[in-house]
């Protein structure tokens, strides 16, 4: 209830911004406003380390004078500041060039239905309760094994916020959402080998967070299994990306098929639409309307309706990922992806993680990637990695200080399996992914 009043108030502010823009001569405008607050507590070695109270707000406006565009933003929401921010945007539009492709979305694409996506579940946790939860988690991790030697602590975060978006085509909508998380990071030592790892859980609804003991135990287990890691000799072998890092492969795909990189011709998948870029069994799609999911949204950053749609089916690239501007540059229509994709999902295969290890047979299981190392223009891929050496489907020993390299175009084509061990924590949902062959560099 209180929420609805606040949303209404913020919608008024956005409308004021848009009116001010029109008054200052803009032919069109788009404005967004967000207000967020939260609490974050961390504990370390059994005691409170920090308590942080968050309170953020900000507004941004883009104005159009014909085909010229200017933007401005501020954290100050006072009436005076609103005027100044609009003037700043208008002043910038005097200097930018007329761009044939600039402008608000096509009105027909704007969202008109606003289903409740179940994104708002405030958590009435007090600082003391949050501390107790973090302590439970960290205690579990520290008690897990004698070799757990130190801790970076455990952190509980809870955030709630409201976002409102409006434009001069009459779109004006706002919604509230929440996000809660618990994370834990510990160290283990055996002789000279010191390692660190972590685990976390995140959800819109605190009831769906993983249990604090489980998070602590997992953090400890992941840390311990890295002890006594060694390098590998340089070789080629199959590579299994564990689910929590396999998301980065889909991230690279989205980078390569997003409008910005395509119209700038800085993608290794130029002109790949309607051609096979994966093996036939791969199916990748967006699910913006999943209830309570982290990536759900009925409209994108421009108010364009999001769609449940295929990006890849039968291994063929079916659609790009476009905002209004990039779509126009490519002679296409927005796909509702200004600001990114929504719950990107790759259809899980039949195999669980153990079965994938068996299929890998002898090769590398990667559980951590380091550095950027991805060239979007050429698809060249070379990243630092850590994980486990596997022989005949059985994990042998942890490895580190190696790189894995290839070209994304080849890597995509040579995916041989996707597991059913899906990591649901983020906006990209995938199981573990097995790539037939990559180059490993090591000692």
């Amino acid at each position, binding site marked *: 209830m209180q929420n609805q009043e606040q949303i209404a108030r913020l919608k008024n502010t956005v409308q004021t911004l848009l009116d001010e823009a029109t008054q200052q001569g803009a032919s069109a405008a788009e404005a967004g406003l967000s207000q967020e607050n939260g609490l974050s507590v961390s504990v370390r070695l059994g005691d409170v380390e920090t308590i942080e109270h968050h309170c953020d707000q900000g507004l941004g406006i883009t104005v159009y004078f014909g085909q010229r565009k200017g933007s401005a933003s501020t954290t100050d929401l006072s009436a005076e500041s609103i005027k100044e921010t609009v003037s700043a945007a208008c002043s*910038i539009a005097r*200097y930018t060039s007329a761009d044939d492709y600039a402008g608000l979305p096509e009105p027909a694409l704007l969202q008109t239905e606003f289903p409740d996506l179940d994104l708002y579940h405030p958590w009435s946790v007090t600082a003391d309760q949050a501390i107790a939860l973090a302590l439970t988690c960290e205690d579990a991790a520290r008690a897990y094994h004698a070799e757990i030697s130190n801790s970076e602590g455990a952190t509980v975060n809870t955030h709630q916020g409201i976002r409102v978006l409006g434009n001069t085509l009459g779109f004006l909508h706002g919604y509230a959402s929440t996000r809660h998380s618990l994370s834990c990071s510990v160290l283990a030592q055996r002789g000279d080998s010191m390692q660190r790892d972590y685990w976390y859980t995140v959800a819109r609804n605190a009831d769906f967070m993983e249990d604090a003991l489980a998070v602590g135990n997992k953090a400890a287990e992941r840390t311990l299994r890295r002890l006594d890691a060694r390098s590998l000799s340089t070789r080629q072998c199959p590579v299994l990306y564990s689910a929590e890092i396999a998301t980065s492969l889909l991230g690279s795909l989205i980078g390569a098929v997003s409008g910005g990189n395509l119209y700038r011709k800085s993608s290794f998948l130029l002109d790949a639409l309607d051609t096979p870029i994966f093996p036939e069994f791969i199916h990748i799609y967006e699910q913006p309307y999943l209830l309570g999911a982290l990536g759900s949204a009925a409209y994108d950053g421009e108010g364009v309706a999001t769609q449940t749609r295929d990006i890849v089916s039968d291994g063929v690239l079916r659609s790009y990922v476009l905002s209004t501007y990039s779509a126009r540059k490519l002679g296409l229509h927005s796909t509702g992806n200004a600001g990114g994709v929504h719950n990107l999902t790759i259809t899980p295969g039949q195999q669980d993680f153990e079965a994938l290890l068996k299929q890998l047979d002898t090769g590398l299981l990667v559980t951590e990637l380091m550095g950027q190392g991805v060239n979007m223009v050429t698809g060249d891929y070379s990243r630092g990695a850590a994980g486990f050496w596997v022989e005949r489907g059985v994990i042998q020993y942890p490895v580190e200080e190696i790189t894995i*390299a290839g070209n994304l175009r080849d890597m995509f084509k040579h995916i041989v399996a996707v597991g059913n061990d899906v990591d649901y924590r983020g906006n990209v949902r995938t199981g573990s992914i097995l790539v037939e062959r990559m180059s490993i560099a090591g000692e």
Partner: protein
Amino acid sequence: MELLNLARLAILIPAGIQDSAIENIMGCLLSSPVDAADIYFQSTHSESWVMEGGIIKEGSHNIEQGAGVRAVSGEKTGFAYSDRIELPVLLEAANNVKAILRQGQDAQVGLVHVGNPVRYYPVVNPLKSLADQQKIELLQRVDSETRKLDSRIEEVIVSLVGVHEHILVANQDGTLAADVRPLVRMNVSVIVVENGRREQGSMGGGGRTDYRYFLENDRALDFGREAVRQALVNLDAGEAPAGNMTVVLGPGWPGILLHEAIGHGLEGDFNRKGTSAFSGRVGERVASDLCTVVDDGTLPGRRGSLSIDDEGTPTEQTVLIEKGILKGYMQDKLNARLMGVKPTGNGRRESYASLPMPRMTNTYMLPGSHDPEEIIKSVKKGLYAKNFAGGQVDITSGKFVFSASEAYLIEDGKITRPVRGATLIGNGPDVLTKVSMVGNDLELDSGVGTCGKDGQSVPVGVGQPTLKIDGLTVGGTSV
């Protein structure tokens, strides 16, 4: 004018905050027994312009302002912030913050003004250093001159960013310190195409100065030339080698090696907590005796420089490694106090909305005695890496990566052919022990670095002379 007055004018006066209000808030914070407390006020105006496809495509103007209130007792920190700089809001923040501490009586605080710190950059507003029309003309000139350089250029993107920041920090001892920080950056990136093959190149620079910096000696045009040169080199690049080999790193920006391999591991927080591979190793050998590495916030006009850090501590040159021996860590106030050492002016925060932590400023290695050519000549077979993209480190295991964007094979003492970008991976605590030659050609980077830690980004600088490392893993595809 005094920096403090400038900061008051920019942040406090528009908000109607008097010194007595700061005394009130501090008094509220200090009503509990604290080891430290501060109030950090910030007002930042920034702008960015982008030229792409031959037109001025985007421009934006941004204002970020607010205040953060912190109290520290032992290892416990309470923190709250607001983008509303208003007394009642900040008093509420102070009350929230001290909930972490035991209650006591309201305290009296009198503010003490610290004089101007030594300044390492001018008091200028970069945003006003050129008229908007002149900024546009600068971008257009860089764009058109760059496009003329080669017929294989397909796209040129030029961006210009300026930041004008005022900060004012009040500490529990009543000291008030302020700084006015300019920062500019320009970047040119190009795409070139030949026979269907597509490559990119990118170059930029800047520092704590204003936009006129880019006009001096036509510096901005050099960025375009360099971006095109890199892109064209990459058109001819073959597969990168894979495996452990001798690596020669060029001078300047490849100093990102030092930032990742040892810099982060020498930040005070990790060492106080014992989570760094360098923890407890002061006085030990961590590099060959050719290596002396410093972190220096006092270099005039550099991107990573600060007159005072975000806790009001004057910056300094901190010796991290001297002739191979680990000398000390980079400290903020909290970690310095808990470790019983002096703060080194490395307490930095992304903004009022984040807590300060020990961070690098400009990190570089002092020059050695070798001629760079002599270094190349000494390598039978190896890799010469001249330019890098980003890097990352796991401070606990010590493993670090950094990705070459321009590299060549060295064969029989000669640089022969270019190879594709590849990630290099090594172990921080021993990579510098393998440094066998250090060049006499120290260079600092051109002013493009941004460092991320715990989600907070801050501008930094790096630098080094040409270095020879006897054995680093190169992550190519040519096995």
